[in-house]
């Protein structure tokens, strides 16, 4: 099955395609045979003794044994550990309700900020943008956010947003921006200096030295979704020369 999975890496697969665990007809008696283990990521599900594709997309592989389906989506589904940009919608008792773009609003405790105690409450009002990570996110429970990591430090999370613009893009573009050697990000660095916050729920926040530059960067990122690499480099070059 490993080999049949490896054969189809970088192929476009549809929901319903399956891989079965084929056993070899002959097992060698002289060499030690190790059991194969494959780690299945998003888009692949195990059903009995078969591996079924449940989302349409491209099969990706990370050695040694991780496989997943790369699919394009606009709707975010909360997952533990992901950092997202949320909008505070309500304050009820000791918790804030935060809209992260999923099917349910997430809750954020007021103690989940760096240096927050019962006497020293964080300065959060309804309508603020927060950059937080999920500490609980599964299909059965209400998602919970925290603005600090496990050691109690903020590490970039918390309330932010004055003077910038938040907009929504597809999840695929966000993953491309966050990948280690992102071409889109390196192209963006050649333009104006700006501050960029990337939420894995498809929300981006941009702030640059003037409102016009902020809007230009926001429009460029939104149009990056549908362009090939060639067209994107061409467009960025035109902006750099000041044509737009």
């Amino acid at each position, binding site marked *: 099955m490993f080999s049949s999975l490896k054969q189809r890496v970088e192929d476009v697969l549809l*929901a*319903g395609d399956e891989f079965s665990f084929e056993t070899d007809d002959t097992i060698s008696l002289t060499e030690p045979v190790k059991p194969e283990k494959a780690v299945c990521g998003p888009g692949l599900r195990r059903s009995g003794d078969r591996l079924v594709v449940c*989302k349409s997309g491209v099969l990706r592989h990370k050695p040694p044994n991780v496989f997943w389906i790369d699919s*394009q*989506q*606009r709707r975010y589904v909360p997952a533990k550990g992901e950092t997202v940009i949320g909008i505070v919608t309500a304050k009820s008792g000791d918790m804030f309700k935060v809209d992260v773009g*999923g099917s349910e609003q997430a809750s954020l405790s007021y103690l989940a900020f760096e240096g927050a105690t019962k006497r020293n409450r964080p300065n959060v009002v309804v309508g603020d943008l927060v950059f937080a990570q999920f500490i609980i996110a599964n299909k059965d429970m209400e998602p919970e956010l925290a603005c600090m990591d496990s050691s109690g430090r903020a590490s970039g999370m918390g309330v932010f947003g004055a003077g910038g613009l938040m907009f929504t893009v597809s999840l695929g573009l966000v993953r491309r921006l966050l990948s280690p050697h992102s071409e889109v990000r390196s192209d963006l660095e050649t333009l104006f200096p700006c501050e960029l916050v990337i939420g894995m729920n498809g929300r981006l926040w941009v702030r640059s030295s003037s409102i016009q530059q902020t809007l230009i960067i926001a429009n460029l990122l939104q149009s990056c979704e549908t362009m090939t690499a060639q067209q994107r480099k061409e467009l960025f070059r035109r902006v750099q020369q000041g044509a737009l």
Partner: protein
Amino acid sequence: MMEVSGSSNVCLREFGCEQSLLSRPDGSSSFVQGDTSVMAGVYGPAEVKVSKEVYDRAVLEVLIQPKVGLPSVRERSQEQCVRETCEASLLLSLHPRSSLTLILQVLHDDGSLLSCCLNAACMALMDAGLPMSCLFCGVTCAITAEGEIITDPTAAQEKESRALMTFAIDSTERKVMMSSTKGSFSVHELQQCIAVSQKASEKIFQFYRDSVKRRYSKTH
């Protein structure tokens, strides 16, 4: 799969589709079969009212808007057919206490409307990235007064037929997921129509595969 006998006509009208054409829904598609054209939009998984939520799976709501006028009883029965097919193929238990909404707008009806709705619905669900256990497609067959079987009939052919059947076929085992029939026909004719529909569904599934391949080859 059943055997197809000689006197049947497995030819479909020209079909085409487009995905991600609407900006607000999470998934959208437009499917054209000959002159029949349907546009679909999917929203979800989204918030649901507490009165409508189900604790262990997502709730799917289908709305079919006709080209002219308000939805009537005919649209309600078509919605039920589409909803049952979608519920059978979507993995609803992965999103408990959420809602999925599928809205189908009829742009032009020239026969085979229900199968065009099913195809548009499947493409929109794929575009939205919802987890599915299999894909499905819709095929319509009409039996003429002489006993000939026509696939993908036009509105004129549907009017003159003595029986009209629509089947939803799944992609993994080519089995019938849903059937909606009108008119009088024998058991043998029904089995023949099912065989013809299964054969026609191959073309549609190949088309799905090609269009998804084209879509993913663009953005790299």
